[in-house]
């Protein structure tokens, strides 16, 4: 959907330096790559080029045959529309909320699981289970079986008759996402904790460092890359959240939980404003490229870490 994002970092050493062979040899090397690369180019880049073209047209599908070139008018409409701005803010809030809370919970759980105890692998299996439930099923179950004011489990256990979804729409969506994504963060952070060298930790203990000092001075710096990776990958997935909003709040009440994917979906398939939806899509892609450039930098540093092992 976009062009190659070039990285600012120096390239890691090649595992095997490609030989400067004849052009025939080079094509033999490329041959296994081509089917996958061409497939990805066609399926992901062509639609995006098409979006660019559509974004310059005044095209509402309810007025067939009436399509005219309007240049950047759609962009002006979309950028001056408060709906898009509020969708942008909601996207940031929902994504950041879900990523931060799932990260904190994931870290706590990873620390718990880093110890040896009876049935550790069973507990790990229990903990990853929320991540495996189909997202749309999870969202529907949370909405109807947990949040429902009359017979939902939350009010059933704690009493009261709070209508969670309409009183706290953002929190309701975030809680569901956090529940699903905490296992993901936990797995990444647990891998980070377990990659700490036991000998170094032991040496610190012998030198008289207490558990808190070891945690803040050694474990957290060691985990930094893993925290970054978890935050980035989590954001990549969560910024596209659609299932939970579609089924829990339908973007409401009002626009309280309408994020960019849901807003564009509404513009496309409810208002049929194809031109405006495309312009919004292009804007989202540009924003993503900005964020992704930073993301790729972090990923490539991790990638070097893996390479050097």
């Amino acid at each position, binding site marked *: 959907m976009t062009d190659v994002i070039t990285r600012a970092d120096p390239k890691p050493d090649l595992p095997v330096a490609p030989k400067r062979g004849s052009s025939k040899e080079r094509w033999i090397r490329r041959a296994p790559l081509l089917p996958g690369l061409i497939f990805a180019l066609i399926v*992901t880049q062509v639609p995006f080029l*098409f*979006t660019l073209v559509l974004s310059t047209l005044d095209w509402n599908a309810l007025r067939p045959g009436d399509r005219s070139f309007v240049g950047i008018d759609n962009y002006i409409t979309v950028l001056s529309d408060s709906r898009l701005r509020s969708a942008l803010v909601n996207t940031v809030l929902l994504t950041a909320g879900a990523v931060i809370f799932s990260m904190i919970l994931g870290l706590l759980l990873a620390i718990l699981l880093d110890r040896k*105890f009876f049935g550790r692998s069973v507990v790990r299996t*229990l903990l990853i*289970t929320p991540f*495996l439930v189909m997202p749309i*099923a999870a969202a529907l179950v949370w909405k109807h079986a947990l949040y429902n004011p009359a017979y939902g489990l939350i009010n059933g256990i704690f009493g009261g008759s709070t209508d969670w979804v309409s009183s706290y729409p953002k929190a309701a969506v975030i809680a569901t996402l956090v529940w699903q994504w905490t296992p993901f963060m936990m797995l990444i952070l647990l891998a980070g904790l377990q990659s700490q060298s036991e000998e170094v930790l032991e040496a610190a203990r012998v030198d008289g460092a207490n558990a808190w000092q070891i945690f803040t001075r050694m474990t957290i710096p060691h985990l930094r890359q893993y925290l970054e990776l978890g935050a980035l990958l989590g954001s990549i997935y969560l910024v596209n959240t659609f299932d939970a909003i579609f089924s829990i709040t339908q973007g409401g009440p009002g626009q309280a939980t309408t994020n960019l994917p849901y807003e564009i979906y509404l513009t496309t398939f409810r208002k049929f404003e194809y031109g405006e939806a495309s312009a919004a899509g292009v804007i989202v892609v540009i924003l993503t490229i900005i964020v992704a450039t930073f993301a790729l930098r972090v990923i490539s540093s991790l990638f070097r870490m893996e390479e050097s092992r």
Partner: protein
Amino acid sequence: MTTLAAPARRKRKITDSVWGIVAWIAGIVFVFPVIWMVLTSFKQEQDAASNPPSWVFTPTLDQYMTVFDRNITPFLLNSLMASVFSTLLVVLLATPAAYALSLRPVEKWTDVLFFFISTKMMPAVAALLPVYLLTKNLGMLDNIWTMVILYTSMNLPLAVWMMRSFLLEVPREVLEAGEVDGAGLLTSIRKIILPIVSPGLAATALICFIFAWNEFFLAVNLTATNAGTAPIFLVGFISSEGLFLARLCAAATLVSLPVLIAGWLAQNKLVRGLSMGAVK
């Protein structure tokens, strides 16, 4: 020495088991919504909608019967087709590509690798309209093969990165020794590479399967009655039936089951797949 160490060791043992209990409680709290979903799916509707929640009830399979009566089977088969075929296609495209990006790298292999991952970062919503219009014009709306192609492109970057990380584990010396002994490409693939990467191949396939099976956004916009997948059944079920909690839970349990099983089986490889091979 021993008299000093014993209480300390006992104290450590006690703290360990206390934290163990805390971990167990956390695990049960986390999994509880799933347990509740499964429990509710075995209730009668009046038990499911009771307040306070009913913990003791006579289990029944009625809700599952109803779900099958409402014809969930074609939706499950569509999901199975879309997931299995897209996973096969992904593996067929990604494995050779990963080979050309790891063991025998092409020039500019890092750029290619980052091109793949950048396609994963792009929001699907930006491509939705053109994809919708193109498939409509090609007469491919509500067609399972459209979903196979889209899911393939959705999972391809993940699979390329993952397979590359597994292929890098093939010891170079062994490969070179094989070449010196006159092993051709096919022989070294069969005798050296495949045995080492096959667990990785299986994990890659399982993760692609999970993502394809759970996909909702493209499915809800591009499929309807013919090619509708399991998530589409779930959504349609709610709107056509009104709210029947126990029935909803039965359907939700049923559609989640394949991925739950796949994920439990692959859990040791899950983190590596989700981090695209960056975390082992």
